[in-house]
């Protein structure tokens, strides 16, 4: 049984208990009825709401969730470009990032509240998509931080032993030299050039 199925069953049982109270509020006359009322009208819904929030937070980290908006479609296609110079495609195709969390793995801040910050930005995306209209072409809020690359690569042997990386390791860690726009790993999603490339078919 999946965690989602368990959560839905929990919510259904909670609804049934609440329905008992709604149908027969007189049951709260007794002490055990009061306990039932407290469970059904406070504790279980609070737990259910929190669990639902966590479930939605986890879903919102999936690649499917990110690509469910039409505007993200070309970015999803760029993950299948058959060229190892395309950084996101190479990471995605070789499982350098989990395929089911490809977007979020690179586009979250690896800080204490990075996940929540990313989700708050997500609210802005929904607002832009349905109310104000997205500003095309879409772009990052701030230049891509090396911290997100170094979160995985920073301590990797192959990274540290690379002479180019070793020569400027402090600049990379201080974000003074960008991994992406310094000319070394600058082919990222490039959605304007998708018509000119070959695609990998898994």
């Amino acid at each position: 049984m999946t965690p989602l199925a368990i959560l839905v069953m929990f919510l259904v049982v909670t609804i049934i208990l609440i329905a008992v109270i709604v149908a027969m509020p007189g049951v709260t006359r007794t002490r055990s009825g009061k306990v039932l009322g407290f469970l059904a009208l406070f504790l279980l819904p609070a737990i259910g709401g929190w669990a639902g929030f966590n479930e939605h937070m986890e879903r919102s980290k999936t690649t499917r969730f990110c690509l469910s908006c039409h505007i993200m479609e070309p970015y999803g296609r760029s993950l299948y470009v058959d060229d190892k110079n395309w950084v996101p495609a190479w990471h995605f195709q070789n499982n350098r990032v989990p395929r089911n969390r490809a977007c979020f793995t690179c586009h979250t801040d690896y800080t204490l509240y990075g996940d929540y910050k990313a989700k708050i930005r997500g609210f802005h995306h929904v607002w832009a998509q349905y109310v104000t209209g997205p500003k095309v072409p879409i772009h990052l809020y701030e230049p891509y931080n090396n911290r997100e690359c170094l979160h995985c690569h920073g301590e990797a042997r192959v990274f540290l032993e690379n002479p180019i990386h070793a020569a400027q390791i402090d600049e990379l860690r201080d974000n003074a030299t960008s991994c992406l726009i310094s000319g070394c790993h600058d082919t990222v999603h490039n959605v304007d050039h998708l018509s000119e490339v070959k695609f990998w078919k898994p």
Partner: protein
Amino acid sequence: METVVNSQPPFKLSLRLRAAGVLLIVGLAIEILSFFWIHPLAFMGFLVIGCAFLGLGIVLFLWTLVSIAKSGPSA
């Protein structure tokens, strides 16, 4: 044996408990429905509508408890 604290829940208390219950049922139903769709709007629907109903239901229940405690068991 069960101890009967109040002989009958007052009408106002019953009404508030029922209202809280209905709000919570609607909130939980929205939460369950939101799981059937993986999309930002499902998340927003759960957060803005579902959680609003859940929050109102819980607050109404707690307010009912507090108001009973203030006015005594016979209120």
